[in-house]
């Protein structure tokens, strides 16, 4: 059995719309395992982002608890949360979220400096990551000077600089065109193959195919789960068929 890295108990999240209370997540008990490429799917407005934010410390939840890497984050204070965000995990957003007044290189390296690491090693690592992600030529450009795909790749490099135990990604290809999206997904797939745990939200079939565990979210619950092997040499087309069938059963 794989090691559990995220575990929720009776997790619930509701929003108040005026007088009305909307439950977006209901009594959810969920486990996510180390080394998995976990996909959270569902129709638009199903609560995918809400769930991911709750799992990743990005937002508070209304009830229940979340254990992240064995720690109950429910009662964590701001500093403990900041600590987890910095050292144990990374979050890749759909939108562009680089700091506009720093170069791509600075955006990546800046996140890595700490008291325990030498600046030189961080700089080297940042350069290497950017190179691996094909941004060698652009590292001294500013975010406003590069394309969306390059920005998102920079965001991935920034996410990797602190060697996170988990990477969360909320529709990382949502703002990209399909070829740029494919590059980003390839990178994530390769990272996962190297052992990186990833939890990714998507409503895109092709993107979902990359995962080895697909959770389908509906009415605030997990309404089904599809376990696959890790993506190997087999054709993506075939795998897409399986995922499509799974989703079709869910009236996706």
């Amino acid at each position, binding site marked *: 059995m794989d090691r559990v890295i995220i575990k929720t108990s009776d997790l619930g999240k509701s929003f108040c719309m005026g007088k009305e209370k909307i439950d977006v997540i209901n009594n959810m008990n969920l486990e996510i395992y180390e080394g998995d490429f976990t996909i959270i799917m569902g129709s638009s407005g199903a609560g995918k982002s809400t769930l991911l934010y709750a799992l990743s410390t*990005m*937002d508070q939840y209304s009830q229940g608890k979340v254990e992240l890497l064995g720690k109950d984050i429910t009662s964590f204070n*701001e500093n403990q949360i900041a600590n987890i*965000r910095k050292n144990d995990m990374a*979050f890749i957003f759909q*939108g562009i979220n680089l700091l*506009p007044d720093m170069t791509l290189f600075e955006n990546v390296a800046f996140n890595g*400096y700490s008291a325990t690491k030498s600046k030189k090693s961080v700089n080297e690592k940042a350069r290497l990551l950017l190179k691996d992600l094909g941004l060698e030529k652009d590292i001294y450009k500013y975010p*406003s000077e590069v394309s969306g795909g390059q920005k998102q790749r920079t965001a991935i490099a920034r996410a990797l600089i602190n060697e996170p135990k988990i990477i969360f990604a909320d529709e990382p290809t949502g703002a990209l065109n399909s070829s740029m999206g494919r590059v980003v997904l390839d990178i994530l797939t390769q990272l996962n193959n190297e052992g990186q745990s990833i939890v990714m939200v998507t409503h895109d079939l092709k993107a979902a195919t990359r995962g080895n565990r697909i959770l389908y979210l509906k009415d605030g619950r997990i309404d089904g789960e599809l376990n696959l092997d890790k993506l190997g040499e087999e054709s993506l087309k075939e795998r897409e068929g399986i995922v499509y069938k799974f989703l079709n059963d869910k009236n996706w």
Partner: protein
Amino acid sequence: MWKKKIRTSKLSFLLIAVILMVTSGLLSTSRIFIDNINSSITDYYGNPAFPDVYLFNSSDYELNMLEDQADKGQLIKDFQKYKAMYSSMNITQENGETFNEDRNLIISIKDQEKLNWELTILEGKDKPSPEVGEIWISKILADKKDLKVNDVIKIDKAARSQFKISAIINDSQNASLANPAKIMYVNEEDVMLFDQEVRGGYVVFQYGSEKEAVMNYLHENFTSNEYYMEKNYLVMNQLADTGLVSVIMTLAGLLTLISGIIVVLFTLKNNLMKEVKSIGTYKALGFKGSEIKKIYSKAYLFVGIISTTIGVAISFPAAYILQKEILKYLGNFGYNSSYLIIGGVIIVLFNVIIQLFVALELRKINKISPVEAILQTNALKNGKRKWTLYKNTNNPIALSINDIFKNKRLSLNVCIITAIYMFTTLLFINTDHMFAVSKDHANIWLNLHKTTATINTNITSPEMEDAIVDYLNNDNRVDQYGYGLYLNAGNYIKYDSEKYGVLDGYAIESFSRYDHLGFEIYEGRLPEKYNEINVSLNMLRDTNLKIGDKMNFKIYGKDEEFLIVGSFGSIKYAGRNVRLLNEAMEHYNLKPYYNTIAVQLKNQEFYSEFKKDFEHHFKDTLVQANLGNYDELLNDMTSMVPPVVSTITIFMLILSALNIITIISIIMMDERRNLGIQKALGFTSNYLKVRILSRIAILTSTGIAIAIFIHNWISKSLIELVITSPNAIIFSPLKSSIYCALIFSVMLVFAFLGTSKVARINVIELMEE
């Protein structure tokens, strides 16, 4: 459309509205005030009935001569004569406290309606004259001595008779704090109560011919004019009272105008830069440049007119109250058309400037294409490398310094705005200090001596002069002494207006010596010989003379030459004063009555004994501690300034507080998204706060440093432009430092409160934008 614009950027518009309101309000207050003060005074004394000369004479013979001259109607006209008393008197209040005033002039009148000068009853019953046993006193005196109607006072020179105060009045003769004599009015029948020796006649008249001819006539024929006042001196005293306040208001108005315009334009520019995106959207929607311009012009016109109108409207009562307070001893001056004219000009001026600037800025923005505008997030120009001082770091303080350079325009704004307000407030705080300590420097302000005792007397004969000199030489409590004539030596020695140009007024003073008596010298040295003089800085400026030059005076109609050996500062008589030695009086055979003796005792403890002995030995003399009445004179002249200065300082502080709040909110708005990103990356709120706070701390301290630099550099010269006694301009480095430290802390507290938002920034909201 423009209304929607205002609604959607409420904060920006509100801010500019408040700044506009305060700035236009302050400017309009100062403008209206200055305009009205001067015109009120000149209008008031412009009354054609007012006498040109007011004098008290104790010789019946001379009085009759003057009356005969008036009957001839050539030299003088509109002659009025009243029985009166003039002397230094001990007047006691019920509580036994003496007035300790200078000389008092008590005039008997029959019908106040028939007086050629203006007398208004403020409190008490309106009667033609005081009844027997009653006395009317001026509001100045009532205020200073806390006297009320129905209080009873006792006058020693009237055989200790009691008088009941039956009215408190404003009096055109006695409307100025700078007027040395305190004038009171009694019933004609009570004149006989007073000692024979203090009784005499009080006459007023107008020039029937050239002033010069009248003067010559008076000087040649009269030796007993103990009290002498001219209308232009009354006007000048009045202007001296209000002059300092006017000067401060002028300065405030000027600085507000400059700083106000700079700040308004900066804020406007910031507001418009934020509109780049909206303008891009309008363009994409097919709006023409001129249509877009109209939206903004109308929005700013609306906000500008509303806020400047409110500011100007507030300034009306403010200026009115100030004017009423300052002129309370002169009369009642109400609102008039100048209020509306000045207010209107200010409203138009401000709005024209704003409209021009909006048009100018929009033209720049208009050149940007819609796509550029919409895509422009943090206004980064393509290909422009940003200079970073600290590389390879995420230390918040180092990054805050990078932020300063990366946001150059904002940083510059913060520095300049802080510097402007700090400089202005530093200037006013130090001006306030200068007035607060002025009483210790009355000798510098007013060109006076500074000794342990001052004796008021009239040295009416050479015998008396010898007796006093003898007495002081033989009294071993006396260290140094000198005696002479303040203010009116000019009656004997005349400034040559043909040669040097006409002056409003001037004073020539004569003293037996100037050394060791605390007389201040600015440059050069004190006069030592009969033909040496010191000339005040203002008079040197007016006459284009300098130390080492010769200056001519008219004595008995003849030109006499004096050598200027030194200069000094003074605000007395519009800063136009000349010092010469009694030796000159002797040399030219002039025989003035010296009226002031400055005595430096070896020990201050000797004072009471000395006073008792001297007053006992010489009749009709008054010994006072230190500068005596002159201390009070300066205090009276300057007392109105601190409240005005404090009020202005408070206004300035409100403005600077507003600006700090703006700056912080601008930074917070600019940084919101970036703060969210950094939080998602695991930077703590405290880290982010430190980064913002240290940026604000660095910028404000730079601004303060610039302000201190400018202050040290130009404040003194700025005040010297209006206050003509440079050595009296004394600043307080201590107060300045405390103030700067205080403002710095307050700014940080504000900034700290502003950054408390950081903790509440929700990462998610920002990411989804």
